[in-house]
């Protein structure tokens, strides 16, 4: 037991450094595995791609109004022999979305079903292209129609293929998916679907913004950090290599020089971008919402980066045809390959067995500290074995002193979760700000108010705090944080890891006996809100668009508003997790710091 106490701090420091080194080492190529097709049904067949090159495409005229676009689409799909249906949906956002400039959203989804000629209608595949009026995804819609025409003439389809053109990107997809699966989790109003296929096995979303494409970017990150099966990424990569199309992930091309510093940095940057994107829990492409219904989906985005080598639409058509044919051959849903992975490049991946120990080392620090505290708390009782001791009542008052900060912290968390959206009208009346700014600034205000709160109330309610009191509180808070981070990491590893990296050092070492001013500064600098700020800056650095401090601050505010909107519209869990659990936990440690 004495060993545990003496070696505790050195072991904790070693574990933390080991965790960071392990994580950064994940991008190092010899530690990663080569991606390979794991699904038998997709590997063995060679598809001969005749391609849609012979069919001329027609771009959607962007000057047409909304209604005209959907009628035009209906006619175009019908003339290609599909069963066409439309769905209208509407939703009032909790506050205006300044990034996409919308508040009252009304739209129509148009989708056409290509029935499989010889098979029973039990399974379906979805190819979707988001298209809003004034948006620039015309090429994708054109490609969709061309593919529809080409597919219509083939006889080998075993699954129904649904060609979906959704309006208002994620909201249209959400409305369509909810209607398809007869659920209503986000409170959207939609008309029911008139026609259905079978259960959807896989989905692809296309975003082609210009005529000229030089590379295709694969987007895998979905809602709440969920990822599709790695086989889908492997499939895409295999076809890109076969057809000679340049493919990127996170917008970065692969490099072959893994043994140089630049090569390693490149892979590490790609992996960090994936971690940051996964941690923020939003769906980075339309495919992200399919994953919730256990439908493997990925988004393919065409990028024009002004290279010499250009890919024409015919090759992209053949790529998609190949992918859809391979998906057509599936006997059951993709499940052979990994669901949890990180990609430093398209041909290398890190599986959950490799990256979890990094997180495990961080949680071990919390557990070691908790064990140490338990031993210290139990020691006085064991020391007084001889003689009749006065029966202590440690449990009575100690529970009360622990309960007060816990309840107050959680009430502040509930306030942070509920008040910004509910109080926006009041804030707009009294201050000259727009609704979005009101919501975000209220959230920031409540966050900072929380810093002042526990400081005073603890003294008011429980009188003089004892030495034992803060230890019991710290023990509870450490275990609470460990369980919370563990559950988060199981569902969304990146979020759990990013939070652990900043929260674990301060929480493990926090005692009331440290210099107050310095530790308070460090605690605030490593609090969840600042973690988000750092992530914003690091993200901007990684996508090679560094921002100044003021721009970074504006981005940070827009990230908060997007987080709240994502939670209200699509059910993203990042904002409630941070407001209701992580922030109260951090407040408990803040309370320990100012324990007197």
């Amino acid at each position, binding site marked *: 037991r004495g060993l545990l106490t003496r070696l505790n701090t050195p072991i904790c420091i070693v574990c933390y450094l080991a965790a960071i080194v392990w994580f950064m080492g994940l991008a190092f190529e010899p530690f990663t595995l080569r991606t390979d097709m794991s699904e038998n049904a997709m590997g063995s067949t060679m598809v001969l791609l005749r391609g849609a090159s012979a069919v001329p495409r027609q771009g959607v005229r962007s000057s047409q109004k909304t209604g005209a676009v959907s009628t035009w689409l209906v006619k175009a799909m019908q003339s290609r022999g599909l069963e066409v249906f439309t769905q209208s949906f509407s939703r009032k956002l909790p506050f205006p979305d300044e990034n996409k400039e919308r508040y009252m959203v009304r739209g129509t989804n148009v989708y056409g079903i290509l029935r499989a000629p010889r098979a029973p209608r039990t399974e379906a595949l979805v190819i979707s292209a988001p298209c809003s009026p004034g948006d620039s995804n015309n090429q994708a819609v054109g490609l969709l129609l061309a593919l529809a025409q080409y597919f219509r003439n083939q006889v080998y389809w075993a699954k129904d293929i649904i060609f979906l053109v959704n309006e208002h990107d994620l909201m249209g997809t959400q409305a369509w998916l909810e209607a398809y699966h007869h659920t209503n989790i986000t409170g959207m109003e939609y008309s029911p679907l008139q026609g259905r296929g079978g259960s959807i096995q896989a989905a692809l979303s296309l975003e082609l913004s210009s005529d000229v494409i030089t590379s295709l970017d694969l987007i895998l990150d979905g809602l709440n950090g*969920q990822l599709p099966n790695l086989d889908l990424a492997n499939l895409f990569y295999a076809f890109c290599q076969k057809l000679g199309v340049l493919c990127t992930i996170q917008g970065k091309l692969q490099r072959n020089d893994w043994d140089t510093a630049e090569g390693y940095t490149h892979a590490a940057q790609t992996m960090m971008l994936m971690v940051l994107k996964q941690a923020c829990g939003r769906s980075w492409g339309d495919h992200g919402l399919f*994953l*919730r219904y*256990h439908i493997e989906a990925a988004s393919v985005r065409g990028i024009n980066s002004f290279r010499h080598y250009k890919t024409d639409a015919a090759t992209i058509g053949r790529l998609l045809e190949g992918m859809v044919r391979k998906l057509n051959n599936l006997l059951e*849903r993709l*499940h052979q390959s990994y*669901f*949890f992975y990180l990609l430093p490049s398209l041909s290398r991946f890190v599986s959950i067995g490799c990256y979890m120990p990094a997180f495990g080392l961080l949680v071990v620090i919390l*557990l070691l500290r*908790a*064990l140490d505290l*338990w031993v210290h708390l*139990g020691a006085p*009782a*064991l020391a*007084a*074995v*001889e*003689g*009749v*001791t006065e*029966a202590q*009542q440690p*449990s*009575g008052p100690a529970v009360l002193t622990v309960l007060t900060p816990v309840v107050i912290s959680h009430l502040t968390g509930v306030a942070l979760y509920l008040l910004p959206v509910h109080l926006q009208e009041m804030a707009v009346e009294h201050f000259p700000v727009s609704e979005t700014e009101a919501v975000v600034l209220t959230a920031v205000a409540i966050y900072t108010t929380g810093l002042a709160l526990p400081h005073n109330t603890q003294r008011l309610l429980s009188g003089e705090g004892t030495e034992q009191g803060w230890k019991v509180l710290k023990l509870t808070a450490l*275990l609470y944080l*460990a*369980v919370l981070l*563990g*559950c988060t990491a*199981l*569902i969304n590893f990146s979020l759990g890891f990013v939070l652990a990296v900043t929260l674990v050092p301060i929480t493990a070492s926090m005692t009331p006996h440290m210099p107050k001013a310095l530790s308070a500064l460090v605690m605030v600098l490593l609090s969840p809100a600042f973690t988000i700020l750092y992530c914003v800056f690091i993200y901007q650095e990684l996508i090679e668009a560094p921002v100044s401090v003021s721009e970074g601050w504006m981005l940070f505010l827009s990230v908060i508003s997007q987080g709240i909107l994502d939670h209200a519209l699509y059910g993203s869990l990042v904002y409630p997790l941070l407001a209701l659990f992580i922030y109260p936990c951090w407040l408990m440690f803040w309370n320990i710091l100012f324990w007197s």
Partner: protein
Amino acid sequence: MAAPLTLLLIVAVTIRAVLFRSSWAELISERVEVVSPLNAWKRVVEGLALLDLGVSPYSGDVFHETPFMIYLFHFVVDYAEIVFMVTDGITAVALYLSIQTYNKNVFRKQKYALESDRYPADCLELLRSPKEMFYIPLKVAMFYLLNPFTILSCVAKSTCGLNNAIIALFILCTLKGSALLSGILLALATYQSIYPLTLFAPALLFFLQRLYIPVNLRRSSFWFFTLQYAFIYVGSLVVITGLSFFLLGSWDFIPSVYGFIFSVPDLTPNIGLFWYFFAEMFEHFRLFFICVFQINVFFYTIPLSIKLKEHPVFLIFMQIAIISIFKSYPTVGDVALYMAFLPAWSHLYRFLRNIFLVSCVLLACSALFPVLWHLWIYAGSANSNFYYAITLLFNFGQVKSLNLISHFT
């Protein structure tokens, strides 16, 4: 002590009422950790609907409650929420009064032993003072009422709460010394789910101890009392079963309730050990393993009774714990009942070396149950092995904590 108890009851009722009115109630009543096919409210409603139509509620293999339960709810189904809250209150008050009686007995014995100098010198710090024993019944009631497991079970309207109330009343009557009431309540508890049968032995030992009858198989007084108690118990059981027959007019309930408990046909995942095993079992061996698993629940009575015959109340606690770990369809409500007893032995906690690790394991498992269920059923990234691993770890934690606590004697 009435005032703190009343305050506690009010707080508990408020929490439950708030949760009943929120949107969480529906979510909780579908969680497999909280309800099982034996005690789900959904099935009670189904049985009531069938009864109203004039059909036997046991047709269709949905309803597995006893006829008493269906008739009780036939009259109070409109006030179901109040019934469950009142039941929790009854359990808490019964536990409070029983632990109060137990503490009085223990303190009296301690006083006599102290006066006759039977304690060695180094055990003196284990003696309990009246002051600390004053708060223990309140702590027991608090542990039951404010336990998240109990609250979840109540909000889900799982009839496990009613079973717990009957067992708590049985313990109260046993500790107060009324053999008749104790026998009748034990028969009622056995009638509800068979496993409380194992509580016959500790109750018998308690009465023998209380009446100063030595547990000696050759003494006629021992057999005389045993036969009396057994007669009360078996007689009440027969009367209750007969009444059930007359209530519904058929013996349908025996295969539906007791056959279901014993043969475990429904393999919905829960926090128990049966479902995964029997999902993978070949039909050929099913009967053998059913027997093995069921004997496992009843078997521990014999060695435990022999070892713990001086401490029948502790034996009751151990038996309830063993039932709730090894029964065929456990839920968190069963776990909450035996956890409520832990403060009664709080003076011995300093001797539990590994209790911290074990309670961390139990806490982490309770948090991981919904996470892994979500990953298995909704995200599709995990499978049943992960969920069963957590179930195994949870039960292992419970067994280990029982192991540690049994070192008290």
